[in-house]
């Protein structure tokens, strides 16, 4: 079914989405409506236009495709499902994700993938085609973040303070340059063939949505960031 979002308040739009019996829903003329797909399960949503903040927050197993850019907090605390953005994403994309996948064709803002978590086989994934702002993967406790840096000519595709407070998960950066100024709790090393094998599937899916050759994308140098378990945060404290 199609919903024309022109002039609709977010409450009305989201109520229509929740009430819809159809599995496949297309939202046209979307302009800034927030919380679309909040906690939504079992639907396929196509959004034409510009959804507002907190798109797919707590998403619980739906697919959302956005033909346009998204604003802040896309996929906030999402649990399952997939968000595919044919454009750029705003700040705090994938905040505290605990499952599911987010693919962004273009760039993503500050604080992408912060607080991501994982448990056993439930591993959230964020793949960004272009570059991201500062604070990528802050406090990351799990999951996989891949920044492909397409069009960056090998320049570092991240801003400052990547991985601050990281204590789990992995960050992959496609770049010729090792990020500088990482905290002592984070290890950075060049990705091995084995590391790249781990993200091959994600890159293949990225290419399936946005085009490109997976092997070609994976060929250049990648750096991988991991928490340094030998240098935990508790050393900051003394019992009193």
């Amino acid at each position, binding site marked *: 079914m199609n919903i024309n979002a022109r002039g609709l308040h977010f409450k009305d739009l989201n109520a229509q989405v929740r009430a819809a019996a159809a599995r496949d829903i297309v939202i046209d003329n979307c302009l800034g409506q927030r919380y679309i797909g*909040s906690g939504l399960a079992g639907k396929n949503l196509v959004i034409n236009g510009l959804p507002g903040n907190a798109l797919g*927050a*707590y998403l619980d197993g739906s697919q959302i495709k956005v033909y346009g850019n998204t604003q802040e907090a896309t996929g906030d605390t999402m649990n399952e499902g997939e968000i595919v953005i044919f454009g750029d994403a705003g700040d705090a994309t994938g905040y505290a994700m605990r499952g599911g996948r987010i693919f962004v064709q273009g760039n993503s803002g500050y604080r992408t993938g912060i607080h991501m*978590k994982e*448990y056993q086989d439930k591993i959230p994934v964020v793949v960004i085609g272009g570059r991201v702002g500062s604070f990528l993967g802050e406090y990351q406790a799990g999951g996989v973040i891949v920044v492909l840096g397409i069009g960056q000519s090998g320049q570092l595709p991240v801003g400052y303070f990547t991985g601050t407070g990281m204590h789990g998960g992995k960050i992959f950066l496609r770049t010729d340059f090792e990020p500088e100024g990482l905290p002592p709790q984070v290890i950075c090393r060049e990705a091995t063939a084995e590391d790249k094998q781990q993200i091959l599937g994600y890159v293949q899916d990225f290419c399936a949505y946005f085009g490109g050759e997976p092997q070609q994308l994976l060929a250049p140098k990648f750096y991988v960031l991991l928490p340094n378990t030998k240098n935990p*945060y508790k050393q900051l404290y*003394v019992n009193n």
Partner: protein
Amino acid sequence: MSVDFFYPEYEIVRDQNRCISCRVCERQCANCVHAFDEASGKMYADDSKCVNCHRCVSLCPTRALKIVKSGNTFKTNSNWTNDYMKEIYRQANSGGVLLSSMGNPADFPVYWDKILINASQVTNPSIDPLREPMETRTFLGKKPAKIERDCDGNIITKMEPNLELALPVLFGGMSYGAISYNAHASLAQAAKSCGTFYNTGEGGLHKDFYQYGTNTIVQVASGRFGVYKDYLNAGAAIEIKIGQGAKPGIGGHLPGLKIVGDISQTRMIPQGTDAISPAPHHDIYSIEDLHQLVYSLKEATDYQKPIIVKIAAVHNVAAIASGVARSGADIIAIDGFRGGTGAAPTRIRDNVGIPIELALASVDQRLRDEGIRGNISVICGGSIRNSTDVVKAIALGADAVYIATAALLAMGCHLCRSCHTGNCNWGIATQKPELVKRLNPEIATQRLINLLNAWEHEITEIMGGMGINSIEALRGNRLMLRGIGLTEKELEILGIKHAGE
């Protein structure tokens, strides 16, 4: 001895005439204080490891043990106190941030103890709660500003979602991780039995406790541990934790040694690594951003759950509360600077924030002045120690109170303030299976129920004495309070008169 040697602050005194060397103290102490000496056949204690939790004292069958403050002291100095000196030594040795547990123990004024309650004499006679009905039922959430009718003239009864409490006392947020499975089980069962609510804290909800959902408040904090749709829908209300009284402006930090097994699963973080919940929500920088989180939660739960916003009592608390009341939140929880914690930097715990009594009074007044008091209910906590604290809080303007330290005490906590070590001998603030099993959930549940029942009796007695038969009539009724030994300014902020006026 090195400069870092501290003579033990507390000494274990053992009456060797009474001691039967049964070794109970040795088995009960997770800090390995007690030991049996085969050669002499006697028990010995290493005071330096003792945290003064009283587990051994309580379980000694012959009352052979007591713990006393040791007489050893540095040269007396009112400026450089023993504590300040030791803290310097600790930091000079380690370079670390001082970490402590539970609420601010420092000697700041406790305003509850400087407020007196009124009673009726001759006129407006007192009420005997044993004979006459007393209403302590409380509803938390937005209240309609006016009666609305439909086109046929019938009153529209559709209300914003409210929490219904049998008495105006809830258990405050304590995470699964900070406290044990058995402690959570006890709080959940007691809340259900007493018609009130317990609060998950920020560590998510164990699968076993979803059955208590109708009596559960689920918390969403900056770390978003254990937050997903089922969790949000499991609870009766959702609390956004912005801050807590013990450490305003500081995030949570659950030591890695408490991240084991189910805790790791519930929080979805690796075993053994420290759980970091940063100070800010990284998507909240303004009241408008808070509004966004409130509504994303309302959308995710189809507007069925009241949303609570918990903030620490800080200097501008009244203005912040006004913003929260306009953010779409249904309830605001304010946590005073004496609130407890499983771990907080000592300097923050002991120096940041303001007393809940002053914060509560100024928030209630501000919301009334702005005509938005009905938009939001107010819960206060940190720290409520007894039923008269509850009565005074309600009369100062609270709709209900959170108790957490008091609930821990009811379960057996002896306030040794060592939660962050993970070695709680009472089975409460620990994840070690052999310690957790010491807390019997059935007994702890009953003790919590007893506490709430006792407080309810006392609250109705006190209300009856004032000639008030409904908690509604006590709410914000500051004429029922008088200050004692307070300055003009303190009285002005509290909005009460001095005793004798």
